C-alpha cells in the first residue's frame, strides 16, 4: 500500500518534469538551423516544393500552436506522425523500447553480479594484490572507448574464436540473451568499474563501525556478519551510483547499439535529431524522461528494502 501511494506520488511529480523537458526539447530543436522540409527534398525541391511540404507537416504554424498541438497529441496518448518515417511515432518507439530495456536490464544484472563478489574480495583483501588487480583492470576498462573495446571483443570472441555472434538481436528469448551477452557485458564493465569502487570503500567504512564489533562480540558467524550487517549497510551509496549510472545508460548506449547492431532507442534518437524529426525526438524525450523517473523510483524502493530506516514517503 505504501509503495503504491509512493509510486502514485512520483507519477504526479512526473507531470511538471515532463512539461519542462518537452518544452526545452521542443525549443532547442527549433533553434537548430536546418528544417525537415529542406532536408527531405534536398537537391530535388524548389522553394515552392519546400513551402508546400512545410505546410503539410504543420511547421508553418506559430511555435506556441505547434507546442499545444504536441501536448494535445500526448494527452491522447500519441506523439503524432514521424516526419522521417511518415508513420505514427508511438509504435516506432515501442518497437525499439524492448531492445533498449533488455540491454539496460541485462547489463545492470551483470554489473551487480560482478560488483558484489569483487567488491567484497577487494575490501577483505584491502591493499592486497587482488585488490590492486581488480582496481587496475577496471581503470583500464574505463579508459577504453566503448566502440574500440566492443570491436576488440567481437574480433576475439566472434571472429577469431567464434563463440558469440558478431552482432544482432536474435529472435527468441534465449537467442536474445545469447546475442545481447557481449554488448551487455561491455556496458556492465563500465558500470561495475564505478560500483565496485563505491561498494569497496563503504564496505571498508562499515567494517570499522562499532556495531560490527558488537555483532562479532555477540558470537555471530563471520558469514552472517558479512552479509547481513556489513554488506546490507554498505549498499546504500552503491544503489544510488547504480541508479544514476543506469539512467545514463538508457540514453547513452548509442555507440554500443551501433557496434552490435541492436535496434534500440539511442540510435533512433541520434538519427532523428539529424533528420530534424521533431515529433520523434519529442516522443523519445518523453520516453527517456519516464524511464529515468521509473529508475529513480526503483532506486528509492531498493533503498527501503536495503535500509529499514528509510521510509517511502
Amino acid at each position: 500500500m505504501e509503495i503504491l501511494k509512493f509510486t502514485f506520488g512520483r507519477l504526479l511529480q512526473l507531470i511538471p518534469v515532463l512539461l519542462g523537458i518537452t518544452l526545452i526539447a521542443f525549443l532547442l530543436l527549433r533553434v537548430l538551423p536546418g528544417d525537415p522540409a529542406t532536408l527531405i527534398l534536398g537537391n530535388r525541391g524548389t522553394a515552392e516544393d519546400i513551402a508546400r511540404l512545410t505546410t503539410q507537416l504543420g511547421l508553418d504554424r506559430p511555435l506556441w500552436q505547434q507546442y499545444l498541438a504536441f501536448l494535445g497529441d500526448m494527452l491522447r496518448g500519441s506523439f503524432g506522425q514521424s516526419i522521417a518515417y511518415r508513420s505514427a511515432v508511438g509504435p516506432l518507439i515501442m518497437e525499439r523500447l524492448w531492445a533498449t530495456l533488455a540491454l539496460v536490464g541485462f547489463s545492470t544484472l551483470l554489473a551487480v553480479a560482478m560488483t558484489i563478489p569483487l567488491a567484497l574480495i577487494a575490501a577483505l583483501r584491502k591493499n592486497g594484490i587482488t585488490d590492486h588487480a581488480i582496481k587496475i583492470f577496471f581503470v583500464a576498462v574505463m579508459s577504453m572507448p566503448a566502440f574500440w573495446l566492443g570491436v576488440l571483443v567481437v574480433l576475439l570472441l566472434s571472429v577469431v574464436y567464434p563463440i558469440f555472434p558478431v552482432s544482432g538481436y536474435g529472435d527468441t528469448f534465449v537467442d536474445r540473451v545469447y546475442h545481447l551477452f557481449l554488448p551487455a557485458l561491455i556496458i556492465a564493465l563500465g558500470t561495475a568499474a564505478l560500483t565496485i569502487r563505491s561498494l569497496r570503500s563503504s564496505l571498508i567504512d562499515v567494517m570499522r563501525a562499532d556495531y560490527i564489533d558488537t555483532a562479532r562480540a555477540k558470537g555471530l558467524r563471520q558469514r552472517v556478519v558479512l552479509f547481513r550487517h556489513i554488506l546490507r549497510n554498505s549498499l546504500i551509496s552503491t544503489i544510488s551510483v547504480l541508479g544514476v549510472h543506469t539512467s545514463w545508460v538508457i540514453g547513452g548506449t548509442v555507440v554500443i547499439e551501433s557496434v552490435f547492431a541492436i535496434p534500440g532507442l539511442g540510435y533512433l534518437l541520434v538519427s532523428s535529431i539529424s533528420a530534424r524529426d521533431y515529433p520523434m525526438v519529442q516522443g523519445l524525450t518523453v520516453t527517456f524522461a519516464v524511464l529515468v523517473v521509473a529508475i529513480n523510483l526503483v532506486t528509492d524502493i531498493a533503498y527501503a528494502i536495503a535500509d529499514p530506516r528509510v521510509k517511502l514517503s
Partner: protein
Amino acid sequence: MTSSSINHLKTGQVWRRGLFVATILGSLSAPLLAMPADAANLRVAIAEDALTLDPIASSDNPSIWTELLIFDQLVRPSKDGTKLEPGLAEKWTISPDGLDYTFTLRDAKFANGEPVTAEDVVYSLQRAAGEKSDWARFFKPVTKYTIVDPKTVTLHLDKPFTPMLNNLALFSASILPKKEVEAKGDEFFKMPFGSGPFQVKQWTHGEKMVLAKNANYWQSGKPAVDEAEVQIINEDNARVLKLKAGEVDAIVGIPFNQVSQLKADQQLNVGVAEVFRTDLVQLNTKKKPFDDQRVRQALNYAVDKAALVKGVLRGNGKEAVSSLPVMAYHNSDLKPYPHDVAKAKALLAEAGYEKGFSASMLVPSGDVTYRQVASALQSSLKQVGVDLKLQSIEGTSQYSTTKAGNYEMSLSYTTSDTIDPDQLIGFTAVNPERANAFHTEWKDDRVNELYELERRSADGPEREKQFKEMEARVHDGAPFIFLYHQGVPYASRKNIEGFEVLPTSNYRLEDVVVK
C-alpha cells in the same frame, strides 16, 4: 523461409547456445568454423534502414533501394547506368513532336496475382504528381493520360520535356497496385508489394527487413534466392566483421582503409562501384575574392586531386573535371585541373591577390573522410598563400547555411537520382534555378540558355553537344573546386555470385545466386 532452412538455423543456434553455456561454465572452446550460408537465402548488411516504403515520400537511399526491389517502373536504367531499358513497358514510342509517350505494358502480374494494367500506371503516376508527393515536380509535365487499352497507355505533355522518360525510371514513378493502395491507404506501405522481384515479408525497424521472392515476377528464373534478408548494421567495422565471420553474405560500405586488406582475403569478392557522385568545394561567388573566375581556377590548380584519391580514398575513386559525375553525355575531352602551384600563384597575382588571402571552409562534422580531405586542402592551399580556416558544421545544418549564403567555401557533394545529367546540371550550374548553381550563385547565361534547349531537344547528338558545352563551361567557370568521384566499396563471400552495387547506388538482388 523454407521449412528446411528453419531447421537448419535452429540446429545452428542450439549448437551455438550449448557452446555459450559451456563457455560460461568455464570450459575452453576450440575455434569453430562459422555456419555455412543457407543455399536458398541471401543476407545483406547495409548501414541504414529504410524510413518509408512509399515511393512518393522517400528521399533516403535505403528506402529507394528497397523500393526498387519491390516495385517496377515503366522503364529502368541499364545495369551500367548509361541508358534506359524496358521495365514494365516492353516497348514505347515518342511522337516526333516529343509530346506523346505511348507505352505497351508487358504481361506482368503483381505479387498477389492480379495483372498490371494501364489503370494502375495512370493511378500511380497521377499519385506521384499529386499533392502528397515530394516528387511532384518530376511528373507535372505530363498533363493528360489516355488509356488506349488495358495494356497500352499514352502520356501527353503540353511542351517537349526530354528528361521525362528518365523521370519515369525513378523509384518515385513505381507502378503500384491501384486496388490495394486505394483500399488500404497508408497501411499498404507497411508491407507493400508490387510487380518487382521481391515483396516485404517482415520488417523490424532498425534491425532487418526480410524480402520474399515474388513468385509472379515477370523475369523467369528470377530471383534466384527464395529470401533476401537486409540487415541494418550502422557501424562500418561491425559490418566488415560480420562478413568475415560469415554471419552475412554481402555488405555495402567498407572503410576505405580496409578495402585492400579485404581484397586480399581469399574468402571474399570485393568491388568498388563508380556511383553517380561528385565531391566538391562550393565557392560563394557573391563574396570576394571568389567573385573572380581566376581565383576560383587558381584554387582548382592548387589542389592535388590525384593525391586525395590516392591518400584519402586509397585509390577508390577518380578525379573530377566538373560538378557532374561521369555519366551519359559526359564531356570526355575535359581533363582535371592539373596540380600546378606556379600557375595557381600566377592566376592569383593576376587577380590582385599575390599575397594570397584567408578564407573559411565549412566541413561536415563526424565524417572521417571529410576531415582528412579538409586538412589536405588546408595544406595544399597554404602553398599558394591561401590561409584556410576549417569550420566544422553538423551535416544537417550545412545545406541551409550555404543556401542562406552564409559561407565562403563549403566541402560537400552531389548525387544524381536519374541517369540523365539534366538533374545535376539544373542543380549545380543553372542560376536562377532551385539551388542557384548549388548555392554558389555562379551565373552563366549560356548555360542557362543551353539548359532550356536541352530540355526540349530529343535524345541524340544535338542534346549531347549541349551537355558537353555546359560541362565545359562549368569546368572553366569553376564555381567549385572539383575534387573527385568517390566510389562505394562492397564485398560478398565467395559463394555469392552476381552481387554488385550499380552506378545508381542500388543493387539488384534478383540477379544474385547463392552457391
